[in-house]
């Protein structure tokens, strides 16, 4: 979706990319802001203005540069409790109704005739009676022969309603141990139903193909309801999930448990449907007594209900897992891939430039005593242009590591490979979003390469609160002075490091500094490492190559002022970053941040309370009103352009 009120303007800018590049000058803090936005962008898009969704349709043409070990989600036993206590809330976000279902019409027809004798399997006496009646009727009445039926069942307005005293998804480490499954995870859906009602408007059984004269059998408004004092129905549906290297995703249903048979049900109906049967002797007609039919049915109702319960119980325990596995083989896609738009960091909020697209792919599921782990690979691409390849040197140096964290202290840990952050910065730079740094006093320098971020555990002084980061920035600067100009073959290109920190911003929005103020994460640029200045050799003349030390010294002098300013007043990025993201639509609150030596940012998170997003009741105080005001202001600003 694109914002059309800026469409024409943006189209004009697109036709003239140099205009975008030459006119925009960014502040020095902005570079860190871009890094922060990139972090946010790794997992989400927070732009208010929809754009790029239609560009997603071009996904098929994208070359996907996959980053392995990109995102890790580690649910602790404490976090698993959330899914044990709030599963219905999670299911709200999947569009599946477990509490009730309704089918306007269900039709079923036997594929082939059913042999009459098979209808009483297990009851030889009844079988013999059926055969005898069949023979008698065809012998004594002309044209009245009972064929093997091929029934059609029509159920109109069928539905059920359930009420749960428990509905939970749990990780079953004990069963996993018993089954000795290597890798993957055994999960179980556990339910306790204290109210159950199933019914239909009409259930009608006919046999128009084989025995049309039998008319219709069935009932109007049949209703099966659990009695008030009935024991609750307990259900347990375990399943095994794994991602195998060559076979992709596997989901296997395991033997289930149910107590349907011990529950008490009441069967009611408005009327029975039965053919009108008349016996005629000469001119005398004798109609079948419907009252006897109803009485007879009532006498056998308890038996019918018991049969239904046993059938349901047997289905759940035996044929359901088998059928589920049959169908899972066909239905579960081998490779799960989720594609979402991602608002490019550095993009003007009023711009309608296409969003990046990012895809997540499940690579590994594992259940350990400490966590249920989901490890995902990812790609991020720009659908509007040919993307540069990701730099191998910008990736994490290995897998994420949770060592040193206490799984009892948080619900969920989420790790992000620095390669993802750097990929976003690379794509944004390729679009020309990171092109200049403002050094103050009207002086600016051009970024000649995409900034890269490294996460540095050795630099952090409070690892539970901060994640220290080092951004390497390459700038291109016009040279001044006779000697320097002789030493370079044009603008000089230098790289230097900026140190900053990421921290969770919690508490009242008016607060500031680490640990206080707003929501989500914040980034603060602390210092420029002037000593880290390196001059790009290719930008030096032969003379400059000889006197590279002098050129570097001149570059350091240039940065000195900006560094001193930053040291006096660390640049805090004003906006909170909308991280962490929601997990299956559930809001998360940051509890701590850390980085590991391999270059992963780890967010330690708790599931948060339900809050309204940007639409809320008029009287609500828990809505994000600050965000709503920001968006309204943004709308005014963009509209005025």
């Amino acid at each position, binding site marked *: *979706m694109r914002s*059309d009120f800026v469409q024409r303007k943006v189209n004009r800018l697109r036709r003239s990319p140099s205009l975008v590049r030459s006119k925009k000058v960014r502040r020095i803090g902005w570079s860190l802001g871009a890094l922060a936005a990139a972090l946010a962008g790794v997992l*989400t*898009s927070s732009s*208010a*203005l929809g754009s790029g*969704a*239609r560009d*997603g*349709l071009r996904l098929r043409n994208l070359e996907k540069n996959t980053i392995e070990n990109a*995102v890790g*989600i580690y649910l602790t036993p404490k976090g698993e409790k959330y899914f044990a206590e709030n599963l219905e809330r999670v*299911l*709200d*976000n*999947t*569009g*599946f*109704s*477990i509490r009730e*279902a*309704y*089918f*306007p*019409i269900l039709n*079923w*027809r036997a*594929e082939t005739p*059913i042999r009459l004798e*098979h209808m009483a399997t297990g009851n030889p006496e009844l079988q013999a009676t059926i055969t005898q009646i069949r023979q008698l009727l065809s012998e004594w009445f002309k044209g009245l022969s009972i064929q093997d039926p091929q029934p059609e*069942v*029509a159920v*109109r*307005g069928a*539905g059920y309603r359930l009420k749960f005293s428990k509905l939970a998804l749990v990780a079953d480490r004990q069963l996993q141990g018993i089954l000795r499954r290597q890798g993957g995870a055994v999960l179980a859906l556990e339910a306790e139903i204290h109210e159950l009602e199933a019914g239909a*408007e009409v259930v009608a059984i006919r046999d128009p193909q084989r025995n049309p004269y039998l008319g219709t059998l069935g009932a109007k408004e049949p209703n099966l309801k659990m009695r008030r004092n009935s024991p609750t129905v307990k259900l347990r*549906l375990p*399943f095994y999930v794994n991602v195998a290297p060559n076979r992709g995703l596997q989901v296997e249903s395991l033997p289930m448990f149910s107590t349907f048979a011990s529950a008490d049900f009441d069967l009611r109906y408005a009327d029975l449907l039965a053919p009108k049967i008349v016996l005629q002797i000469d001119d005398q007609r004798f109609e079948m007594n419907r009252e006897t039919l109803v009485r007879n049915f009532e006498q056998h109702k308890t038996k019918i209900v018991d049969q239904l319960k046993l*059938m349901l119980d047997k*289905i759940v325990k035996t*044929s*359901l897992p088998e*059928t*589920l596995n049959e*169908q899972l083989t066909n*239905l579960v896609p081998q490779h799960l891939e*989720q594609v*979402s738009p991602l608002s490019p960091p550095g993009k003007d909020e009023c711009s309608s430039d296409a969003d990046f697209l990012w895809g*997540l792919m499940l690579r590994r599921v594992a259940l350990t005593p400490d966590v249920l782990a989901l490890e995902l690979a990812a790609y991020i691409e720009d659908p509007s242009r040919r993307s540069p390849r990701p730099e191998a040197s910008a990736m994490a140096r290995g897998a994420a590591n949770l060592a040193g964290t206490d799984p009892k202290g948080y619900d969920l840990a989420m790790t992000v490979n620095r390669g993802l952050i750097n990929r976003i910065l690379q794509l944004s730079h390729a679009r020309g979003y990171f092109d200049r740094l403002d050094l103050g006093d009207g002086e600016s320098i051009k970024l000649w390469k995409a900034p890269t971020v490294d996460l540095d555990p050795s630099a952090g002084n409070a690892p539970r609160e901060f994640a220290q980061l080092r951004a390497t920035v390459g700038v291109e600067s016009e040279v001044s002075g006779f000697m320097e100009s002789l030493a370079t073959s044009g603008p000089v290109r230098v790289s230097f490091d900026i140190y900053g920190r990421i921290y969770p911003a919690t508490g009242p929005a008016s607060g500031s500094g680490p640990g206080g103020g707003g929501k989500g994460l914040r980034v603060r640029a602390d210092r420029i490492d002037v000593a880290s200045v390196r001059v790009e050799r290719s930008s030096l003349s032969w003379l400059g190559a000889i006197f590279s030390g002098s050129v570097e010294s001149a570059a350091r002098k240039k940065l000195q002022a900006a560094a001193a300013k930053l040291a006096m007043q660390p640049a805090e990025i004003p906006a909170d970053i909308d991280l962490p*993201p929601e997990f*299956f639509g559930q809001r998360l609150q940051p509890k701590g941040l850390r980085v590991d030596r391999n270059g992963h940012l780890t967010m330690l998170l708790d599931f948060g309370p339900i809050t*309204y997003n940007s*639409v809320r*009741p*008029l009287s609500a105080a828990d*809505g994000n009103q600050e965000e*709503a005001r920001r968006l*309204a202001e943004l*709308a005014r600003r963009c*509209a005025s352009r």
Partner: protein
Amino acid sequence: MKQNSLLRQIRELIFDPRAKAEERNSAPTQRRAFTRILALGLLAGISGWFDAMTIAEAQNTSAPRTRTESIRALQVENLGAYQGKFLTVLYAIGSKPVLSTDNRQTELTEIRAVHTVPIQNGRATIPSVSLPIVGFRPAYNFVMFVVHEQRDFVWTNTTSVPRDPRGLVANDSNTLSLRVAALTKSQLERIAVEQPNAAALLLSF
């Protein structure tokens, strides 16, 4: 396409006469059909990765009674920044991705009802709706609020376009939005409980 293929599979599962040979001439065929319905219901519930699952077959000539869910009118306030623009409200079935923060990332699989109204004096009023309940699906699970410049708006997902109940086709201009917000069904139900006597639920943007 994916949805059509899945629906075809489901229909074949339950109604297809070309069933497996071992099922032929066996008494518990009816039970198998029921097991399949149960199984498909469970499959639909295991994950949002599976598409819409509707087992209803409109083969009978007389229409059955439709079960519906009614939602009161909505009055959305604080839209002053969007004077003269339009608000489209979509009642839809959709899902959130594994990771998300943005309402735009909600994937709508089925749009059940859409209303577009002009924004005047900082507010917009959406009339009440009555939505059918079919299959293992709620009447809706998301209400999306979209502010847009053009008179028409068509929702597009990241990689697909759900069918618009009004028959509108997505193009370059009618997919543009200024702002997207959302409420889940349970959030809207909570608001309805808090405002028991209001003819229109009062919401703030």
